[in-house]
């Protein structure tokens, strides 16, 4: 297994380099550049613009800039933001925790509700649980997050005053856990409602498929209770596709929920990424890309290890 992990890590290096170079090239090829934004007041002199170009290193060829960025990365330096003149590492560090909290809560909630509902839907097709599962899936799939966010803000925050409209803590509050949960509720709900449909449907179909297997009939004929049959035998064997579906949420977990973070003014990675793209802040875009890329590659490796743990037929090669 150790050999397998090492091999996978080695494979990850060219993938990582390929992704980062592709992103670096694409953002540089996109129309508009950081200088256009920095000079957007329309009042910057041509001499200032030229000096800025040199001081930001934008006068160098793209390939040279990429390798300079890569060299900095290997020394633990993600560079300095064009827009804020701050260290990119610090900017990302400030944003990663709120993002993990928001998307993590949303996904956790979706797992805790979606998977049991999927099992119940599979166990009792056409029951009230099955209908509830279908309804929740339908809502999750059909409501765009920006619309749902605005709807919830209007109904629950503005009209009822039950929740805050935005932010992570109340201004001047003590940043207590209660305050955090109060602010977290609406955006986390919006983040959770979309994946929940996938989890319900995936769990339902996987469990239903397994319930028709011969070994389930054997288990039942041995006199095992329905709960034991479903949870211990059926669900466990149905887990692999469910784990795959959940794992697809990992980039979302780290990359943040762009739209939701924007609307709820949540200080996460998603809103940082959007601001950076709008201002063509290449070092920050690359920093966030590198983070997401690294996490996704690592998560894929972890996922393969989990597959092997769940299914003894899977061997490391």
């Amino acid at each position: 297994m150790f050999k397998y992990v090492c091999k996978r890590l080695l494979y990850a290096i060219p993938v990582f380099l390929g992704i980062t170079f592709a992103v670096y090239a694409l953002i540089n090829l996109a129309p508009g550049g950081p200088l256009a934004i920095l000079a957007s007041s329309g009042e910057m002199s041509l001499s200032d613009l030229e000096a800025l170009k040199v001081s930001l290193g934008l006068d160098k060829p793209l390939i040279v800039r990429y390798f300079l960025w890569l060299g900095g990365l290997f020394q633990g330096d993600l560079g300095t933001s064009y827009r804020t003149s701050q260290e990119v590492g610090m900017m990302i560090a400030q944003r990663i925790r709120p993002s993990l909290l928001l998307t993590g809560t949303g996904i956790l909630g979706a797992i805790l509700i979606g998977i049991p509902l999927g099992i119940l839907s599979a166990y009792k097709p056409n029951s009230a649980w099955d209908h509830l599962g279908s309804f929740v899936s339908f809502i999750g799939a059909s409501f765009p997050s920006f619309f749902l966010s605005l709807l919830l803000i209007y109904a629950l925050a503005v009209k009822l005053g039950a929740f805050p409209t935005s932010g992570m803590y109340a201004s001047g509050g003590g940043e207590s856990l209660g305050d955090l949960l109060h602010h977290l509720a609406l955006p986390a709900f919006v983040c959770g409602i979309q994946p929940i449909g996938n989890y319900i449907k995936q769990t339902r179909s996987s469990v239903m498929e397994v319930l028709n297997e011969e070994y389930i009939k054997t288990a039942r004929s041995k006199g095992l209770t329905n709960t034991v049959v479903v949870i211990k035998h059926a669900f466990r064997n149905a887990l692999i596709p469910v784990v795959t579906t959940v794992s697809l949420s990992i980039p979302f977990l780290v990359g943040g929920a762009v739209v939701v973070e924007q609307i709820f003014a949540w200080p996460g990675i998603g809103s940082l990424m959007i601001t950076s793209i709008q201002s063509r802040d290449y070092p920050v875009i690359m920093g966030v890309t590198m983070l997401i890329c690294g996490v996704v590659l690592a998560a894929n490796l972890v996922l393969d290890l989990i597959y092997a743990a769940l299914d003894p037929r899977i061997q490391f090669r």
Partner: protein
Amino acid sequence: MKRNARRILTLILAMAMALGMLAGCGGDDSSTPSNGNDAQGGTTAPSTPAAPDSGSSGGGDYSGVVITYGMTTAWDTVNPYGSSSGSLYQNVTVDTLYDRLAFIEEAGTGVSPRGAKSWESADGGLSILFHLDENAKWHDGEPVTAADWVWTAQLITNPAFPFGLRSEFNTWAGTGDDGAETGEKSVGLEAVDEYTLKMTLKSAMPAEDWLILHNKYFYVLPQHLLGDIPVEDLMAADFWKNPVGSGPCTFISEISGSELQLGAFADYHMGAPKFGKLVIKVIANTNTVTSVAAGEMDAFFGSPTVDDALAAESLSGVDVTKSSAPTGLVSLIINNQNVSDKRIRQAIAFAVDKELLIEQSLQGMGVASSTCIIPGSEYDAGIQWQRDVDKAKELLAEAGWDPNATLTMAIGSSRESMAAVIQQNLAEAGIKVDIQTVEVATMFSGLQDGTYDLGISGSTAMGYPLWMSGYYDYRNATYCQISDHAYADLQEAIAAEMDEAKRKDLVKEYQDLLWDQMPLVPVYHGYSFSVKASRLQGYNGFESAQNNQRVWEWSVTQ
């Protein structure tokens, strides 16, 4: 047994990797850095608003008062020289932390004391004497002196200091066209005494004009805290993580691009702010009025749409104010290289139905523009625009316009309906327009490099006649691709004219030139709106368009 052991080991390894991954992503505690200012004199607000000494001078205890101010776009940095964007969001934010020489009134109609309590022109307008306020202090309690202002000027004109807007200061003696010093510390600022600053200019200019044009970028920095740091290291100095200024607010914490927490500076010489904490938050465009209505925001930067402002009037706990002058200028940018014949530019101006656009975009709350000068203002020469499609056609025929030619117009998504009207208007005159909806970076870039022929942009007009001079200056990275020196020459003559009557004549000449050459088409000057919570007092939402706000006069009624 062996197989079970292998599975357990695999699971443990997978969990360890997952945990390690999340822990690695967790970052440090830098999201809410503690305020080192507390140890620098005890004059700043602590990180919690209920502290007894915060903002308590001036006859009341305001330590528990929190004012929340929203922005739809983030400031760049708390380093006033760390950004080159010239963004209003940036300037308004750093204005709370650092002092400037003067305060610019709403619509740029006047200048009032701030860092300097008075000023006077000397040497026939070639220099300005600023009498600094002796009560001004840094947040650490040290006095702000003329030496600090001189040191700051020397710093920002030093080529080793990578400040992107240095040419803003090329009016100072001892600097080149790029604003950089011509010799070591050659910049024309000197401390006459501890509280008198002498600024020498290259050419004569009224003091108020200099302040209106350039004061917005000149923030004083503490020499006693920064003077020993090598200039080339200053941008990256730790100082900016917990800066000390001499403005009305002290720094508490920042989540870059999201939230800035400021305390009240009890010793601020213009008066201690009447709050314990000012929180500046970035909020979504869609949430501005709703946040005020929900009681979570006291005010926000910028003007809401007319529709939102009118809707907000019916909400309880919300005050809506209309600006006294139509200062919101919307212009149709023309690439003067691609559309080099002035008759075609004039034809565009006559073909666009400005009145219809005012009705459509502002529900009639605007005035059709002839030049960038605010209609009805002191310097308005009274040039009247009237739509005349026939005249537009004549001009196009004279210019030999090819009716099969197409102009490309870049717009942001918020201007789509306006662009459609303009497209239809110009088609009536015989000009085909291809509209390209692009995001803002693409639009700015394309206008600057000449990719697009037309574009739509918005700006905030000032009473000062040269407020838009940068757009017409051939030395700038303008959107209009200006190469004609005539605008800059006349602008310089206006700026240098000390006699008010003669200046008005020059400004009339300037407006005639703009009207004749039509380097861009000013579409309309619109009224803007300010929305705030009823509890917030002393707030003028229109001051922010001049890059400053009197936050020290803000207070709340409970």
